[in-house]
């Protein structure tokens, strides 16, 4: 082998081998190019989709709930934006991950893991299941560190009641699903706004990338509600209630202040009460709006109504004399078997109808009712609206109990009803029926929402009074009203006298029925009144259920317990409204 040959051989083989290497290199280049083509061009959309899932977040923008305020613009319920809540999207959680997700959540939020797991598994077809509402900042931080697909935060609004206990029963409260009581529940749909949504991007550490903002759907706030309630009146009614509770320690008290000429509720107050800001810790018993949900036997305050029926029918006149049997009467009714004894607290001889009412004689009232007859009585009871709802726009209103007409007997039902027993009514029903005396025979549908105002300020709804006539105006005004004034002037309600206004009212002290009839179960001390009697503007009912603290020298009669408070409320309300005196 010569050196020249070797050189050329090397050279040749060198070039040939280099060609092989070159071809191999070209192949590798093409593999890379092909792989890039397949990744970026053929399956690029799939990966874009995956990236979107990783980075795109739909942020929930909660719509603030509408406000609730009184007619004199005192806010009763407002909405604050605060608090995050945790939800899961069961569709985004793979079945084999459910256990892990539940474990993570139970560790960071101190919720029950089994419960979470059950929630996720039961709602596999849903997109949204709450895990914990309004978590603390510590919990949020802990969870953010382990956040993964399928777990999300939602910013939530917080309902705030600036007046706390004031008007709590009217306004009600919201739980996590929306309004639960009162106006909040009744007008839930109107108060609830339309939630918005915003799409934005986040990085792997869950930071939002703020400069990349996609489409946004702004939230629409809920409608505002203006009540017929006057804040100032409500305020001193509340004070009055506190005083009454302190003095007499009743089981419960309800007060309603109304405009008898329209059916507007100007104030409504119950004791015991609660703070809607912390409704969950309050005793459910205290959250009841007793003015519409609880029923009582009204007692003597019912007498003017039955007498009114008889007066209107011309069966008796205002001066018709009735023998009151000195307080002890064994009643018998023609055609009905048996007898029953009826008693008066103070025995009287013969009384006029006017005196029957002002001195509150049971025997007299019973005799008037027997004169009237059960058919007519039943007709009037229905007319006044007993036994059915008044239609007020509050939650949980009760019908009350009227004895069934089919088994009605004059001896039992008629005589009991005559002095307000054997029938159960709500305080609102009672006041509403009593208003017919003040306004000349009209039964209005009571209402508490004045208007609904849209987020832009447009009035969406405005209440207008609705009524039906049950009495002749002249009987109510000219016959009954003076009788009721007498009650205040010289009858059982003298403690309700006012300096500058003529007040018309009626006291009531009803025995509370126990499981075995009446006696020793306490009383309901009530007082219902309106003023000024010449042109009634305000009517008030105060019902104190089972007062227990007896001061020396007093009694639990309605004239003692309720009348003074009622008078003060009337006085203050009239003064506040600027009504001139009629005395």
């Amino acid at each position, binding site marked *: 082998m010569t*050196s*020249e040959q*070797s050189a050329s051989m090397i050279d040749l083989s060198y070039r040939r081998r280099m060609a092989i290497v070159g071809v191999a290199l070209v192949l*590798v280049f093409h593999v890379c190019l092909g792989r890039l083509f397949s990744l970026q*061009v053929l399956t690029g959309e799939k990966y874009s989709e995956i990236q979107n899932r990783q980075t795109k977040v739909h942020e929930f923008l909660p719509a603030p709930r509408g406000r609730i305020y009184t007619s004199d613009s005192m806010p009763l319920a407002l909405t604050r934006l605060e608090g995050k809540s945790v939800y899961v999207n069961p569709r985004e959680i793979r079945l084999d991950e459910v256990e892990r997700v539940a474990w993570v959540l139970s560790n960071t939020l101190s919720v029950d893991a089994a419960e979470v797991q059950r929630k996720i598994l039961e709602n596999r077809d849903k997109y949204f299941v709450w895990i914990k509402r309004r978590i603390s900042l510590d919990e949020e931080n802990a969870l953010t560190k382990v956040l993964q697909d399928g777990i999300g935060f939602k910013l939530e609004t917080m309902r705030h009641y600036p007046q706390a206990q004031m008007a709590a029963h009217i306004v009600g409260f919201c739980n996590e699903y929306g309004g639960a009581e009162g106006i909040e529940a009744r007008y839930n749909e109107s108060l609830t706004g339309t939630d918005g949504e915003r799409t934005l991007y986040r990085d792997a550490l869950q930071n939002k990338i703020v400069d990349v903002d996609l489409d946004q759907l702004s939230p629409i706030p809920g409608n505002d509600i203006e009540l017929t309630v006057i804040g100032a009146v409500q305020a001193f009614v509340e004070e009055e209630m506190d005083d009454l509770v302190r003095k007499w320690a009743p089981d419960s008290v309800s007060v309603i202040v109304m405009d008898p000429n329209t059916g507007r509720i100007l104030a409504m107050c119950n004791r015991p009460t609660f703070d809607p800001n912390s409704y969950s810790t309050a005793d459910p018993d205290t959250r009841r709006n007793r003015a519409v949900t609880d029923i009582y036997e009204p007692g003597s305050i019912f007498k003017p109504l039955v007498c009114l029926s008889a007066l209107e029918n011309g069966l008796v006149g205002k001066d018709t004399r009735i023998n009151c049997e000195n307080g002890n009467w064994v009643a018998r009714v023609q055609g009905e078997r048996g007898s029953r004894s009826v008693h008066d607290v103070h025995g009287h001889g013969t009384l006029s109808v006017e005196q029957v009412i002002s001195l509150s004689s049971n025997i007299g009232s019973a005799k008037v009712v027997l004169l009237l007859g059960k058919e007519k009585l039943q007709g009037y009871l229905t007319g006044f609206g007993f036994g059915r709802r008044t239609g007020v726009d509050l939650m949980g209103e009760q019908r009350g109990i009227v004895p069934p007409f089919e088994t009605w007997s004059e001896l039992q039902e008629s005589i009991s009803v005559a002095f307000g027993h054997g029938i159960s009514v709500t305080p609102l029903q009672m006041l509403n029926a009593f208003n017919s005396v003040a306004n000349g025979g009209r039964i209005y549908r009571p209402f508490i929402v004045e208007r609904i105002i849209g987020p832009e300020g447009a009035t969406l709804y405005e209440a207008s009074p609705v009524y039906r006539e049950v009495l002749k105006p002249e009987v109510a005004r000219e016959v009954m009203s003076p009788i009721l004034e007498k009650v205040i002037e010289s009858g059982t309600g003298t403690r309700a006298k006012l300096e500058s206004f003529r007040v018309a009212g009626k006291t009531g002290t009803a025995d509370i029925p126990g499981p075995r009839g009446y006696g020793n179960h306490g009383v309901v001390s009530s007082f219902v009144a309106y003023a000024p009697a010449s042109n009634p503007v305000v009517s008030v009912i105060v019902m104190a259920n089972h007062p227990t603290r007896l001061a020396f020298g007093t009694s639990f009669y309605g004239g003692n317990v309720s009348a003074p408070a009622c008078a003060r409320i009337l006085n203050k309300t009239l003064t506040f409204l600027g009504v001139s005196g009629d005395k």
Partner: protein
Amino acid sequence: MKSDAPSRGWLRTILFGIARLDPSHTLVLVVLTLLSFGLVMIYSSSAITTGRNVSAEFLYLQRQIVWLIIAIGAMIGISRVDYRFFEKYSTHIFIGTVSLLLLTLVPFVGTEYNGARRWLRFLGLGFQPSDLAKVSAVLLMSAFVVKKQQVIRDRRLGTIPAMALLASLTIPILMEPDLGTTLLIIVTSLVILVLGGIRMRHFLGMLLCGVPVVIVIAFLKFGHVKDRLSVWLNPEADIQGKGHQIYQSLVALGSGEITGVGLGGSFSKRFFLPEESTDFIFAIIGEEFGFIGTTLVLALFVLFAITGIRIALRSPTLYGSFVAFGITLMITLQALMNIAVVTATVPTKGISLPFISAGGSSLTFFLIGVGVLMSVARKGTAAMEAKVLRVPELAEDPDSPFVDDALLPVCASAADKDGEQVPPPVNTRLRPLPKDGVIPASVALCEDEPGTADVTVRKKELGALLTQLWTLEKASIPTYAKKAGGALKKAGKALAPAMKSTAVAIASGAKKLAPHVKTFAAKSFGAIKGLFQRPKMFPSESGRLS
């Protein structure tokens, strides 16, 4: 080539335009393009991460620029050195590289990072000896192949020493562990061996035994290799855990689709994709510039490969040709490997994208490699212009340190036949001689051997400098000596007896060991040197010796 009419179309015009450029110019153009694009992408990919962690969005960019200045300086320096200098000092390069590699394995010297001991800290700068080893491997393999040209097909004299050389370079790297670099060096070295003429039988044997053996060792010894393999087989199995990185890489690349989301618009760099500005920067490029961008980057590497191969083909010496080809292959392969990793075509390895990824160590050594490439290119250009005129001249002085051994047989035959047409060096045949036969002026450059001159001058300068320093220091030496002497005397007095006996013991031990150590050192040095020397029994060599 002359008829570059515009009718050819713009693409062909560009391609032929590039082809007509001098490869050394193309090289600079391509590398600078990649480097500047790299700077842009490093800032784009790292700004958010570093901006959050250390409140310095320019941190990586600043570091990279500092490294780039160092690296470009090194590149220019190296390109001024005649590449045959490396051939001559192969032994030293080998010893230096291997000892640095071994040093990384020493605990407390090598710095551990991500479970691998790959780094050496030096003057506050970290560098990976395995990056140096990549360049060294090319230089050493080329030297080996050239020197052993006549015996390369022999199993005992060619293949086995080649394997020994390869093993001594790769085993320390494999121990770090750094499987990617190991495979890269093995493949490049094997290709150089193939080009150098190793028997295909032996080559296939090495390939079929060596690579699987390396992989099996890595698989058994290092747990993460196993994980990476299983992740590669099914990247979407463990998205949250081990497969996270590669899955995010695919998401990044794929979501770029055809046109990309635009520079700076990447989502993956926002903490989704780890190593977003180093090993996985290509994924961010893919996301921001889409298929068009990745194809262009790939095209730049293709252009780099073509340019490198052109330089290799134009080299007047076999050594230069191998070195140029090896370095080109090394860089291109690493780029392809990185892209293959990022696209989940092969399992994950810690391999950066040359010229683009952030990281000073690999950048510096790649640019040193480019420097060598430029040096080869310069010689090649000179040779192209000078033709073969220097061959007789070389023949006159066969003992010159820069005589190309591979050309010697040619030279010898040229001298023998006296005046006959000599076959030109390796690849000059590609182009015809200039018709008028005028010798270009740059021939002078070749005759001058600038490399040699440079080295000598530099040596002289350095010597002068050292002498100067020495004379300055000499004056103060007595003072130091006095102080040190006083202290030593005191200590010496106290320790004298103990020291004396120890010294005696050591001396006697040393005396006994000395010859053994000496012979061992001499033997191993000789053995290493032998790798890069022509075998003694080769006829032309022995002929020359007589």
